[in-house]
């Protein structure tokens, strides 16, 4: 069960976000995981499904 999701960006040396989103930080089954933007990854596929179903919103990166 995915309970929280937030975009991850690439950061510079001072932890300032630069460039595009590179992944998603999500809490899955109580464990925080970094999810790649790969449709073959089951967690990313589930995030896409839940977003499409309106049951999950991905928060902006910090």
């Amino acid at each position, binding site marked *: 069960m995915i309970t929280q999701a937030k975009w*991850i960006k690439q950061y*510079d*040396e001072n*932890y300032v976000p630069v460039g595009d989103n590179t*992944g998603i930080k999500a809490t899955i089954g109580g464990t*925080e995981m*970094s999810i*790649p933007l790969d449709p*073959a990854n089951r*967690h990313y596929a589930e995030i896409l499904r839940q977003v499409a179903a309106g049951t999950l919103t991905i928060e902006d990166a910090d």
Partner: protein
Amino acid sequence: MSKAAQLAALIGSGQAQGNRNLVINGAMQVAQRGTSAVTIADAAQYRVDRFNAYDNTSGAFTYEQSTTTPSGEGFINSTKLTVTSADTSIAAGEYAYCAQYIEGTNFSQCGFGNSGAKSVTLSFFVRSSATGTYCVTLANSASNRSFVSEYTISSANTWEKKTITVAGDTTGTWLTTTGIGLKVFFCLAVGSTYQQSAGSWGTTSFAFGSSNQTNWLGTNGNTLYITGVQMEIGDVATPFEHEDVGTTLAKCQRYFQTILNATPLYNYRQTGNSVAETFTYINEMRATPSFTLTRNSTIFGSVNTGAGTDGLGIYGASTTATALFVYQSSTDASAAVTATVIGEAEL
């Protein structure tokens, strides 16, 4: 048929050759996530490698690796499931199972979805405190082609070997990619929405068993053990193919591996740029994995624990390698930490 003819047929079918088991870790020996019991909920969870369990009933059960095995068969381990909260009345939309998903690249040899689809035979050892009719269901990736097979557990708390042969499905869409080629469900309970008659291919969306399936979750304390799971091409169940544990572990690491295990990382800042370390995986993974990041300790330096995941971040991941950043809180400092990185690319 003469013995010679039987042998010739067996050799011709490929069943006399090694590496014939399409199921990975059928002897339940590899458990990289740990061996102790975890409670299964409304999300597929793994304990013994490659076997997931799922439960959306109002009951509950645990999943662990066990050392209880059938005598004289050479097994060391089994999967053990135990009901910890009973659900005496399974609602229409409720179901529970233990399953293995076989990758399409491995299952493609069965030719499902084509006129030449081959029969497959599933064999396994099972033991339960609850006797009755149980189901094994084979399904495609979309779960819109399913074959439910029934088997009977005759004696409580007694190991029994079961064999199920299923004619190949000549229609439907069966992936031959790195996606799911075949789902093998060991049903534990199933409500009416997800039931399908046994004995033929059907199109029920997400069928897990028939209406005859025993409600294994009906009594608190019920147990069910499984080991020696083997699926092979053809109509004959050959003896379980024991393989060396190193080979099984390597197969499992395509789907789950500990990339770093409390490994020291020395991260030096150079002219204002962070340095990331790149790690090659033990084995190439099926897909770009999800990562669990843990900073075990800080050896020296200042880590920006508010950045990323407790100061750690992934960059540039692929199926073979990734880079790990250690974010620092000072522009001219170096830092060293110990970190654990787990990669997961299950189907």
